[in-house]
């Protein structure tokens, strides 16, 4: 923003290079179902798809607009509720065989969620957007808690603790998509995820998308040149709420149930976690974050009782040592490759990676031994093919050796890395 005359570079020319990420991801989405063959894999893919859209919509606020929100699950949850009520309306209307809803396919439920999420943001958003920063964070925190509490108190709309549930195999079918198994739902998810990601990327290229970066970086200057920051924040808020609602609509079809806890602080925190782990500054960062965090959430607890601790540690480590997130790391490598400096910088990065792996191995072993010592058996300590038991001193020594070796490598190679940076 230092150069006032700077205008966003326009690429009017058709370029395969700009198109390639989209073609590759479309190809991956098409090939994946032929590689995967278990219901669990498809189920996980569907969860990841929902989380990708959710995390990206959150990053419109935080990464692009600079608004830290603790209430984003409100849009996700209300979008999901709207889609679920619509799905039940389809169910009833198709029994009766008449009425507006009898002609609406379940495949379009994400649109219902999107409209609901956008409307909610439109109605409640204006007073929130006067300030960014702490005030905005506090207000959204209050909003999230308020809606979550209301969700528990009005069972007629939110279904009480048991939530409301529906059936996705109703109404007209499109493209012969029956939506019976997770594998069928995958195509639905792939379609909407691709569309939503593309739309959110396109949003960043619009003038409003550019202004959202400006309002993040310097709201005062924006005011001087004639754009009221509040209006811009409000518009980002609505867009972000719409896409949050779209993710909610996808979730309604995937899970066929929605409960009031989906409105609360925990899922809002999940959005922040995914976006931050993936990297706020890179467009595809939240995608990476959504994949990593979803897998950690669903798979890690099979191997260790300390799974939640690891999710927390990963978050902490990234915020402290790699604030640009996993996506930022990938971007580093990509930029280096494009500028032809990869060969020079790679050895330095590899030494860093070795150090990080050693430190993490030591830490993991230490945590597992602590858990084993405190809670009895925990199988993760046998994970490295070796048998570590808390009773033997050698196990603890090994943990410290690994950790120490990691720190040593980090120290020794520091200068080497700096010279080759």
């Amino acid at each position, binding site marked *: 923003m230092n150069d006032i005359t700077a205008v966003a570079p326009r690429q009017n020319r058709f370029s395969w290079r700009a198109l390639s990420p989209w073609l590759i991801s479309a190809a*991956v989405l098409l090939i994946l179902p032929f*590689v*995967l*063959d*278990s*219901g*669990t*894999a498809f*189920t*996980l893919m569907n*969860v990841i798809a929902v989380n990708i859209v959710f995390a990206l919509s959150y990053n419109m606020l935080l990464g692009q607009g600079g608004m830290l929100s603790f209430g984003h699950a409100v849009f996700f949850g209300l979008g999901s509720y709207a889609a679920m009520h619509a799905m039940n309306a389809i169910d009833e209307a198709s029994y009766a065989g008449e009425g507006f809803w009898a002609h609406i396919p379940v495949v379009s439920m994400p649109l219902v969620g999107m409209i609901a999420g956008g409307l909610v943001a439109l109605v409640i958003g204006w007073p929130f957007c006067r300030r960014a920063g702490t005030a905005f964070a506090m207000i959204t925190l209050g909003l999230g808690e308020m809606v979550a*509490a209301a969700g*528990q*108190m009005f*069972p007629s709309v939110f279904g*009480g*603790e*048991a*939530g409301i*549930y529906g*059936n996705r*195999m109703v109404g007209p079918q499109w493209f012969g998509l029956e939506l*019976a*198994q*997770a594998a069928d739902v995958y195509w639905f998810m792939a379609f909407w995820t691709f569309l939503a990601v593309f739309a959110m990327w396109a949003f960043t290229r619009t003038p409003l998308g550019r202004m959202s970066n400006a309002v993040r970086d310097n709201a005062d200057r924006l005011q001087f040149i004639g754009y009221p920051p509040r209006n811009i924040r409000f518009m980002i808020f609505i867009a972000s709420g719409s896409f949050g609602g779209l993710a909610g609509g996808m*979730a309604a079809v995937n*899970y*066929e*149930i929605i*409960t*009031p*806890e*989906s409105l609360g602080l*925990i899922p809002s925190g999940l959005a922040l976690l995914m976006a931050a782990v993936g990297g706020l500054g890179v467009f595809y960062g939240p995608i*990476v974050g959504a*994949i990593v965090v979803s*897998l950690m*959430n*669903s*798979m890690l*607890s*099979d191997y260790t*009782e*300390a*799974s*939640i601790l690891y999710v927390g540690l990963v978050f902490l480590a990234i915020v402290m040592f790699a604030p640009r997130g996993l996506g930022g790391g*990938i971007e580093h490598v990509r930029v280096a490759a494009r500028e032809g400096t990869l060969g020079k910088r790679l050895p330095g990065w590899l030494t860093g990676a070795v150090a990080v792996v050693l430190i993490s191995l030591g830490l993991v072993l230490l945590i597992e031994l602590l858990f084993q010592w405190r809670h*009895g058996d925990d199988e993760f300590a046998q994970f490295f093919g070796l048998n570590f038991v808390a009773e033997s001193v050698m196990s603890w020594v090994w943990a410290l050796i690994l950790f120490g070796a990691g720190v040593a490598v980090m120290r020794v190679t520091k200068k080497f890395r700096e010279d080759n940076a």
Partner: protein
Amino acid sequence: MLKPIFTFLAASLLLVGTASAETVKLALIDPLTGPMAAAGQPAFEHLKYEAKRINANGGLNGQDLEIVGLDNKVNPQESLVQLQKAIDDGVRYVTQGNGSSVASALISAIEKHNQRNPGEEVLYLNYAAVDPAFTNERCSYWHFRFDANADMKMNALTDHIAANDDIKKVYLINQDYSFGQAVSKAAREMLKEKRPDIEIVGNDFHPLAKVKDFTPYVSKIQSSGADAVITGNWGQDVTLLVKAAAEFGLEAPFFTYYGASSGVVTQLGDKGVDRIYQINEYYGEFEDPEMAKRQTELYEQAEWDFYYLRLSTMLDMLKKSADQAKSTDPVDVAKAMEGMKLETTTGEVVMRAEDHQIQLPMFISVMKDDMEYGAEGTDYNFKKVARIDREAVSLPTTCRMRRPK
């Protein structure tokens, strides 16, 4: 970017592939890590302990029973992911107890799964989710409940209160969400019917798991002159409530649903003695030597008390059904389990065929000091006050069960 995921997935698929066909797997989908783990871990340990006993007695129709623990973080959506993992792992029996939200998700998901995948049916054994709807308007053929539902518990509790002529004024305090509201509603209706002279002197709702100091509520109870308090509170909400009452010097007894759940005895100590009552299918005296043995062994092995008699009942009934049907296929087992009778240490229990709700005798017990078998390593435990017969606990159902052909 996608490569590590593929290897991760491949690794998890390999793990799934190693499943042995010899054992019958029962998956526990409950919180096993994190802040709510104290609710899921005791059930996990109980099940593992009881499975050993079942296997020593010949298993299910000759096949060994294996318990698989899957962590759901009490989240309905996450539970569905875990359910799919279990199904891919060859699991045909699922059990869960913590949270009616999760139970609701599992019931509707399993109903749909069984409809969409004939030949791969899954059976859901519910050990603690007590929303009455699950065996009334939302009843499902694939769901069997081994705990008394919330209304049955209130039925037993109000029987006991109605029989006590000293109680003239009752105060209701509950958590402000669907379960707390249902408890309050059932208490008002049933007391009105059984003892119209009892006055409800207060009906409070407080935010769920948010109140740290219950003194204002307790002083309201005190000034209302209540002779007894009924509460469906669980977790910290019951501990802190009774603690505040003890510190305030409130004499009225607390009739609770979850007074003996894990952690309460340790945190209350002397303050709970003669003050906290609970309604449950069992109590803490263990006069039956077999049950005393289970309490001692379980505490030695896993440091959890033998609290869930119903988990023993559940596995015994599962074994009896499998043996009777000479099969471990859920379809045959479900058919055999309908209407099944079983003799337990507290008397005969019946799995009612109409709604798959277990019918069982219940007990009112009160916390006492110097018990032979103390809970959580203390000297406190719950002593039997009254037994309410199976017929008295029972309630009619509105269930219209849809059975598969």
